[in-house]
């Protein structure tokens, strides 16, 4: 066991996979000699050399296209897109190319690649460097989508993503990079498509992802100590594949569902889960499911505005308390 930051876990996860398999290669802007703009890839260039850790021009389409061509022909590339907002300039590859090539070719082509990206708000970077865009990717057939909330999961899910035969979008939360967590020694490998109950409880289920997981946990503590409400917190971890069994199981025990989502409200990931629960567990519910999200706005830069845009611990606790007391 060692305490590690989320940031250092990224480098350790990549190193674990590159050391295991010489076909794992890594490319992106400023990732090599500079160690990444978030310093999440420090040391990889020194450890694995310029043939496997390759700095690229500012060419997001070339980065994802090259990753795809390399994956199709046998390598296992990890591509970094510095900020997930930049998906918009290379979305063709995400939506039209590597997501669809297996299907269009009737299974002849494969794209085992990972796109890592810095996602989410909290850095006061404004509307074009702060978005949570996991829902942009979740809706595309052919992709897998994961978003770890802690250093241990960064390593385990990254390893699972690299070893997966399908393209995986790997959302790292920028505000989590400095956070710390206990990480076991040795190799860590998770399975994609498994949610985790991070706090058991009996009165309500709170589903959260990435930065919203620590906030949901903090809200659960407040609800317990101040109101005697006992919440179960589920870290969704993987949007595709989605672990509906864990989610439905939790709702079956608590009879109340809250999603805590950083993405803006319309078509956020929680909407799909609420619809599944409505279809398959309607009679388990003691009240309407509630989605706690960022409103339908671009994100502002000013700290006092950004802070109230995202679901806060107070807003989560207040919303759950109000629903349960009705």
């Amino acid at each position, binding site marked *: 066991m060692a305490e590690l930051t989320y940031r250092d876990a990224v480098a350790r996860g990549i190193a674990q996979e590159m050391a295991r398999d010489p076909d794992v290669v890594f490319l992106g802007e400023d990732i090599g000699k500079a160690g990444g703009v978030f310093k999440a890839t420090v040391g990889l260039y020194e450890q694995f050399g310029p043939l496997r850790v390759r700095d690229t021009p500012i060419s997001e389409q070339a980065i994802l*296209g090259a990753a795809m061509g390399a994956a199709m*022909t046998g390598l296992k590339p990890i591509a970094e897109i510095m900020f997930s907002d930049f998906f918009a300039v290379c979305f063709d590859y995400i939506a039209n190319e590597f997501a669809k090539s297996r299907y269009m070719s009737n299974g002849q*082509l494969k794209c085992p690649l990972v796109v890592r990206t810095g996602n989410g708000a909290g850095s006061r970077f404004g509307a074009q460097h702060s978005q949570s865009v996991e829902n942009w990717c979740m809706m595309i057939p052919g992709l897998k989508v994961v978003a770890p909330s802690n250093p241990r999961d960064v390593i385990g899910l990254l390893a699972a993503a690299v070893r997966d035969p399908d393209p995986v979008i790997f959302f790292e939360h920028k505000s989590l990079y400095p956070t710390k967590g206990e990480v076991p020694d040795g190799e860590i490998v998770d399975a994609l498509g498994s949610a985790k109950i991070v706090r058991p409880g009996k009165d309500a289920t709170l589903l959260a992802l990435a930065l919203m997981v620590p906030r949901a946990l903090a809200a659960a503590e407040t609800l317990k100590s101040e109101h005697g409400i006992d919440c179960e917190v589920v870290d969704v971890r993987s949007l595709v594949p989605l672990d509906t069994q864990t989610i439905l199981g939790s709702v079956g025990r608590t009879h109340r569902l809250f999603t805590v989502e950083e993405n803006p409200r319309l078509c956020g990931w929680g909407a799909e889960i609420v619809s599944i629960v409505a279809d398959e567990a309607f009679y388990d519910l003691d009240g309407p499911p509630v989605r706690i999200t960022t409103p339908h706005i671009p994100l502002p830069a000013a700290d006092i505005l950004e802070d109230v845009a995202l679901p806060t611990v107070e807003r989560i606790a207040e919303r759950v308390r109000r629903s349960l007391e009705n």
Partner: protein
Amino acid sequence: MAKVEDRAPAAAAGLNDDIGEATRLRLYRIQVEIREAEQRAFDLFLQNLVKGTSHLSLGQEAVAAGFAAAMKSGDLSFCTYRGHAHTLARGVPIEKVLGELMQRDNGLMRGKGGSMHLTSAEHGVMGSYAIIGAHLPIACGAAWRAQYKGTKDVAVCFFGDGTTNIGAFHEALNFAAVWKLPVIFVCENNLYMEYTPIGDVTAVQHPAADRAAAYGLPRIVVDGNDADAVYRAASAAYAKARDGGGPSLVECMTYRHSGHSRADPAKYRPEGELEKWKARDPIKLYRERLKQFGIADNVIAEIDADVRRRVDEATEKCKAAPMPPRDILTKDVYADGGFAWRN
């Protein structure tokens, strides 16, 4: 086979025989096969047996033939929606191409891809891409893999003149040049994007070649209706790529005899333009070339007849082939063979 004295006309014309008879016959056969198969695709469309859209390479056969004949088996082709020609040129059976156009179960992708996405990985055809420019960076990735593994394979990427104005073209050219990738970018300049003349929307005369200098590459313009000229340019580009010399950008001047896609009667062309280019029809030119090199008429006629017979046979097989079964609808979305996104 031609006798020695038959070669006299070529020598008299001062023609250089660096290519050799076997390759010349192959260049001819590939062109004829593309011509016949594309014409058949058009006929089948008129009979409503080819559905959806299709983009023919009638008139552009020499580019596909020249690059394919100079390729090695491990080389990888990346095509556009106008990719039937390049797919056939790699030796993919006509039946599998026509079958896909006719959306039958015997098609290359059993009807799941269609005319714009022909793929035959076993022949090195790593997909046909219908988003303009998307496959240039993808070809870079395949070339990167060849470079990383030291295989000496080359990635070849075919696209049109219109493609030189999209960002992915420029990203890929710079990327390939900086990484010295074994990739060849082949611009088939057929003078039009869909309906707009390329000159109306491009800042330079030669949309590909005049941009080469920006990426530190030589300016190469080839007569794309002369299969020998294409073959020579291709051979030089492959040799450079295999030698670690990095990418090439080759602009081939050519012309499509039909409209952009099956729906296009091509009314936007100035009068006489089509006739002028048809006078330089690549297949007509090449028949004359073969004769100059002393190849007997009956050898040429035999190739023509053999290709026609094979296209006929393929057509009949496709007409008799079943439609794809419905259960493939949800197959191969993910590597486990299915489309499950949840447990």
